């Protein structure tokens, strides 16, 4: 069905060869996982199959790619649209319409199908994928997971034989990943050929037939799924891969010694304009050196709690005190800092070094020595001259953390710090969190990454309907509670 012969590729503006001779054959109805560390070339392989290379991304390409008997280089992307359906990483940037039904019809409209047939296809697609409830909705009001289902449906409406997925679960929470897996299993059962490039592996176990491991633009190994899933844990981390079997993971963060609490939150409630309360009487205390996971489903109030803590959301009642001093929302910006999911938003200057020195007034500017020490501790020293926007996701994130350290933040809140990160980069985040804890900071994490949760957190707060449902330490005897949340 898919035949790649000795493909090499180098993106236009870069020097680095991205693919160095990749050959791969995928039979009809097979489901193949492409995995490997960030930058290994797995995304690029998906682009060979859907024709974005060489038709959209410019660069030097050699080799031959044949899909369903057609030479991709000779076939225009619109002619391929009915053969290969694509689903991308970011649910926010792959839909074209404002409403879901329009999005499902979009591809068919482009290809000029008759209106009656388009309506029929929209209906049958929704029925086949079991997503009727999502028709006629405002796309911007959907959750990330629902957007991803719409993206699959929109590709499905063109009835392609092949689906390629580029890190489809990166931005999704635990439940949404489950739903995505069920939908992909349906595709597989109808005989579609699936090619998936992905970091998170645990959810693919029941789906994949073969696993192709890539490294530095080459295919290193090509195993059957059974053989791959049987790899020992040690081998898996050596390959830089995320957990295959989350059940085997154990809490690994060292609990801090008992200290008197520095942060006191009492009776915190919050609401949105005209809406019902999102937080209802949240109270807890925390000590320096704790890393607290904020867990809960969609709409439980996790994001609102983070926004209230760092003073971004002001419609709140209750008290937040640091070292016994009650702080207003305005006074919390500074001692509290939020590291956003897309930390690129948080960088405002033209170099990493200037980013650390940027402050609201001269008094609060860190000394050059302090900035230097922070750059060293976050392994950013060699990038000091670089423009923040030219950094990788992980480097941007560390720069944002650096600005918080430079300005004496006491409480750091991370919003999904490891979405889309491979094992190596996730370990770096864990190391930074350990460092912050050792300096006596309090760290909060909103995360749906089970592996990170066990590696980095010392305590968990479970929110439900805006209230704290449970509050426990991340210890071996509580692992049952954690598992219950993540099923």
């Amino acid at each position, binding site marked *: 069905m898919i035949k790649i012969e000795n493909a090499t590729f180098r993106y236009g503006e870069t020097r680095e060869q991205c693919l160095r001779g990749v050959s791969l054959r995928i039979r009809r109805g097979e489901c193949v996982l492409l995995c490997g560390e960030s930058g290994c070339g797995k995304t690029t392989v998906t682009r060979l199959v*859907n*024709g*974005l290379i060489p*038709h*959209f*991304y410019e660069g030097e390409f050699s080799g031959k790619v044949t899909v369903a008997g057609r030479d991709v280089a000779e076939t*225009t*992307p*619109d002619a391929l*649209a*009915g053969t*290969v359906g*694509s689903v*991308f990483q*970011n649910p*926010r*940037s*792959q*839909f*074209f*319409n*404002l*409403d879901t*039904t*329009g999005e499902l*019809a*979009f*591809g*068919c*409209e*482009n*290809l000029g*199908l*008759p*209106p009656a047939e*388009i*309506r029929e296809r*929209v209906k049958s697609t929704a029925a086949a994928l079991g997503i009727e409830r999502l028709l006629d909705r405002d796309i*911007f009001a959907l959750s990330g997971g629902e957007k991803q289902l719409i993206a699959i449906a*929109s*590709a499905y409406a*063109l009835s392609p034989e092949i689906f390629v997925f580029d890190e489809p679960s990166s931005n999704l929470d635990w439940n949404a990943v489950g739903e995505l897996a069920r939908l992909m299993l349906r595709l597989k059962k109808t005989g579609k050929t699936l090619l998936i490039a992905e970091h998170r592996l645990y959810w693919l176990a029941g789906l994949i037939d073969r696993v192709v491991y890539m490294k530095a633009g080459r295919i290193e190994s090509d195993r059957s799924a059974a053989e791959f899933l049987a790899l020992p844990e040690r081998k898996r981390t050596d390959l830089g891969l995320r957990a295959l079997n989350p059940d085997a993971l154990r809490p690994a963060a060292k609990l801090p010694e008992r200290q008197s609490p520095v942060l006191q939150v009492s009776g915190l409630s919050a609401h949105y304009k005209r809406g019902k309360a999102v937080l209802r009487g949240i109270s807890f205390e925390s000590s320096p050196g704790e890393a607290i996971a904020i867990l809960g489903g969609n709409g439980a109030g996790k994001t609102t709690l983070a926004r209230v803590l*760092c*003073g*971004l959301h002001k419609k709140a009642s209750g008290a937040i005190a640091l070292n016994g001093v009650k702080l207003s929302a305005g006074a919390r*910006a*500074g001692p509290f800092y*939020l590291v*956003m999911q*897309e930390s*690129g*938003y*948080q960088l*405002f200057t033209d170099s990493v070094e200037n980013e650390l020195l*940027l*402050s*609201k007034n001269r008094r*609060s500017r860190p000394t050059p020595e302090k900035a230097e020490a922070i750059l060293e501790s976050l392994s950013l020293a060699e990038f000091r001259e670089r423009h923040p*926007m030219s950094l990788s996701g992980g480097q941007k994130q560390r720069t944002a953390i650096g*600005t918080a350290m430079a300005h004496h933040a006491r409480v750091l809140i991370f919003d999904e710090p490891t979405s889309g990160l491979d094992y190596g980069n996730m370990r770096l985040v864990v190391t930074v969190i350990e460092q912050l804890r050792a300096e006596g900071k309090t760290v909060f994490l909103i995360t749906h990454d089970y592996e990170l949760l066990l590696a980095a957190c010392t305590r968990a707060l479970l929110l439900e309907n805006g209230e704290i449902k449970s509050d426990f330490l991340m210890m071996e005897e509580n692992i049952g509670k954690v598992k219950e949340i993540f099923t």
Partner: protein
Amino acid sequence: MKIMLDPRVKLLILVLINVVVFVSPDLHTEWLCMGMIAVVLALTGCWRQLLRGLLVYAVMMGVLYLCGLSANFLTAFVSMTLICFRKIMPTVFFASGLMATTTVGDLVSAMQKLRIPKVVVIPFTVTLRFFPTAREEFAAIRDAARLRGLRFSMERTLVPMMLRCASIAEELSAASVTRGIESAGKRTSMRELRLHTLDFGVAAVFTVLAAFSVMGGIPILYD
């Protein structure tokens, strides 16, 4: 009872209202125009837009009347500004109803029916789709600045915003290429539009109004 107008008729009415405003007839013709728009909004069920528009218009008229009572530099300035805004009120008034009752899909298929070329229709759709995105991006950047106690500045807001939007635009283009947007053939639309008697009727009434305004509006009735 609620009626539905064809998006093509709505676009035509929008153009005709602009004609009325452009030839700037006397106040009474403007009131007639506002009144007719109000009837259309009522028929199409846009009560909220109707009340809000009329209220804003009434307040403007009231303030203009008060300014007329005493003539000095300040009132003259306020009047001048308000008159400018009052002039565009009929257009804004109708557009608010248009936005509330027309989906992007309808608008796009109307544009295709009018044989507006794809190079215009597609960028138009993307622009509409980008408004909510731009709002989300802007909110995130504003939050990020607030977290660091930085004040709003053009450079600090617009530069990151442009960079972010550029990367979203690239991802979006890649996604749309895989959905066949570059297809050379004729694009179709899921919705089929048909003009009904009512559409012709409403269009005719507004055409008469525009012609009447061009001829001079209500004052010609007195001559």
